[in-house]
């Protein structure tokens, strides 16, 4: 009941303050992080522990570490963060395409699923730190290897969610599509993909942060540059405030990527959100 009430108040408020919507959204985005950061600031203010430096120290080194150099192109931000982001995007893109394609295939064919599932589960359970050296054997130590590692890690949530999304398609819709003999590509684009899209999007959302994590892990091996590489270097050389700065950067990267993601999925799933909302007050 209380949830119902709050849902009502929220929806009423948002309809009333349409103009203030953007402001409200921004407040919502920054409020909790600000609270947590303040707590961190206060809690660490007098810390003498080298692993837990005061937040002020971390922020103090942040700009210098990432954005100070003779030219902007020489900053760590350009030399380390940008290549990392590029590799994430490439790996994530590969995972998205492969995960959805494989997921649709596996999700719609029971036999294929039974055949492949144990093997896939086998690989899924192998820790990337031991998998990476094997990839190095096959692919060398260039960016392809790193992109592959990211892709292999990102693919699982997308694959699993796609498989389950496809399996869970509304049977009435499937029958309708069959009755009108929708086949091949059109069945895929008009029935399977949109029907499974809420779940595919969930998987893709999961994969986003996994991509960032695996970026770090992949750069721990045979790395030369990158955000993850920098963080590990800072950690090894006990430059702890700089390391925390890197971790914060990872978090910011996650937030930015998820905001972009949200904008894109709001378009893809506009029917879904509309449909969910249509009966919840119709506003």
């Amino acid at each position: 009941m209380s949830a119902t009430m709050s849902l009502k108040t929220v929806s009423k408020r948002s309809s009333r303050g349409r103009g203030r919507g953007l402001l409200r959204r921004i407040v919502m985005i920054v409020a909790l992080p600000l609270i947590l950061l303040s707590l961190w600031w206060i809690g660490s203010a007098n810390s003498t522990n080298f692993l837990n430096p005061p937040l002020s120290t971390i922020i103090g080194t942040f700009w210098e570490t990432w954005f100070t150099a003779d030219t902007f192109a020489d900053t760590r931000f350009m030399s380390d963060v940008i290549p990392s982001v590029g590799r994430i995007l490439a790996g994530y893109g590969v995972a998205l395409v492969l995960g959805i394609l494989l997921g649709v295939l596996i999700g719609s064919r029971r036999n294929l699923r039974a055949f492949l599932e144990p093997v896939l589960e086998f690989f899924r359970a192998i820790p990337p730190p031991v998998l990476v050296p094997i990839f190095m054997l096959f692919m060398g130590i260039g960016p392809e290897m790193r992109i592959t590692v990211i892709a292999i890690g990102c693919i699982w949530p997308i694959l699993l969610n796609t498989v389950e999304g496809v399996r869970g398609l509304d049977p009435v819709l499937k029958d309708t599509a069959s009755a009108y003999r929708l086949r091949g590509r059109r069945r895929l684009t008009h029935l399977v993909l949109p029907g499974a899209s809420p779940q595919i999007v969930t998987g893709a959302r999961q994969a986003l942060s996994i991509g960032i994590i695996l970026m770090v892990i992949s750069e721990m091996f045979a790395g030369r540059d990158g955000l993850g590489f920098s963080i590990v270097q800072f950690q090894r050389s006990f430059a702890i405030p700089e390391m925390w700065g890197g971790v914060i950067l990872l978090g910011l990267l996650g937030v930015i990527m998820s905001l972009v993601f949200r904008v894109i999925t709001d378009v893809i799933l506009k029917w879904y959100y509309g449909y969910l909302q249509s009966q919840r007050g119709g506003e």
Partner: protein
Amino acid sequence: MTDTDNGAANSATLEIESLGKTYTGRGEPVEAIADLSFTVAAGEFVCVVGPSGAGKTTLLRTLAGLLAPTTGEVRLAGSVVDAPPQGMAVVLQEYGRSLFPWLTVAQNVELPLKEKHVPSARRHELVRDALAAVSLAGDEDKYPWQLSGGMQQRVAIARAAAYEPQVLLMDEPFAAVDAQTRFELEDLVRRLWKRLGVTVVFVTHDIDEAIYLAERVLVLSGRPTVLLEDVTVDLGDERDQLETRSHAEFARLRTHVYELVQAAKKGARSLGEAHLSH
């Protein structure tokens, strides 16, 4: 699977031969259809009535090739139906869930036409006409979940109509619309049937509707279903909501079918048993 010749001269005869269907899922197996055999001639309009839970939807799904029969077979134009055949359109009972929520009304109607490779201009024309015929002109760009129940049902009907099928299967397609709209839609389907010479199997609960529409009414027994009686409707080719319904023959058929369904509901499984009960 069937010849795809257009126009009235299609050969889509439906033959149902000792059809049986038992659902075996969770729990006890449920025998929905015991044994059904009948033929729907090419271009014939047949209505199916029977008590709720009899097996009408099961029958229709089997005819559509959406459900594999347990025994017997369904043949369309001589070939066994084991997948939805060419040139068939279906309106399912769950009209709401049979519309694609990610497509607008117009897109929902257009989609099967695309699959049928109807040229774009003709497609738009068909969509527009079909939506206008079900009084949904102006709602093209809405999504199904922005429509009332009756409007959703009319979209499903428009989709089937725009498809210009050779075989049309409809499962209680007018259940959610008001009486006036219902009459209009009945006439729409009759017109479609006449114009295209399409073979129609139409499931309904409204006995008046069945008699008004059909050339033959199949009355089913309760579950497990057998054919109680195959009633021929001799009301001529031209029908009119006011005139036809006030016909004496109409009233007679109506009472007859009504009593049959009542008997079926009470458990009658043969004409003999049914007539005993009244």
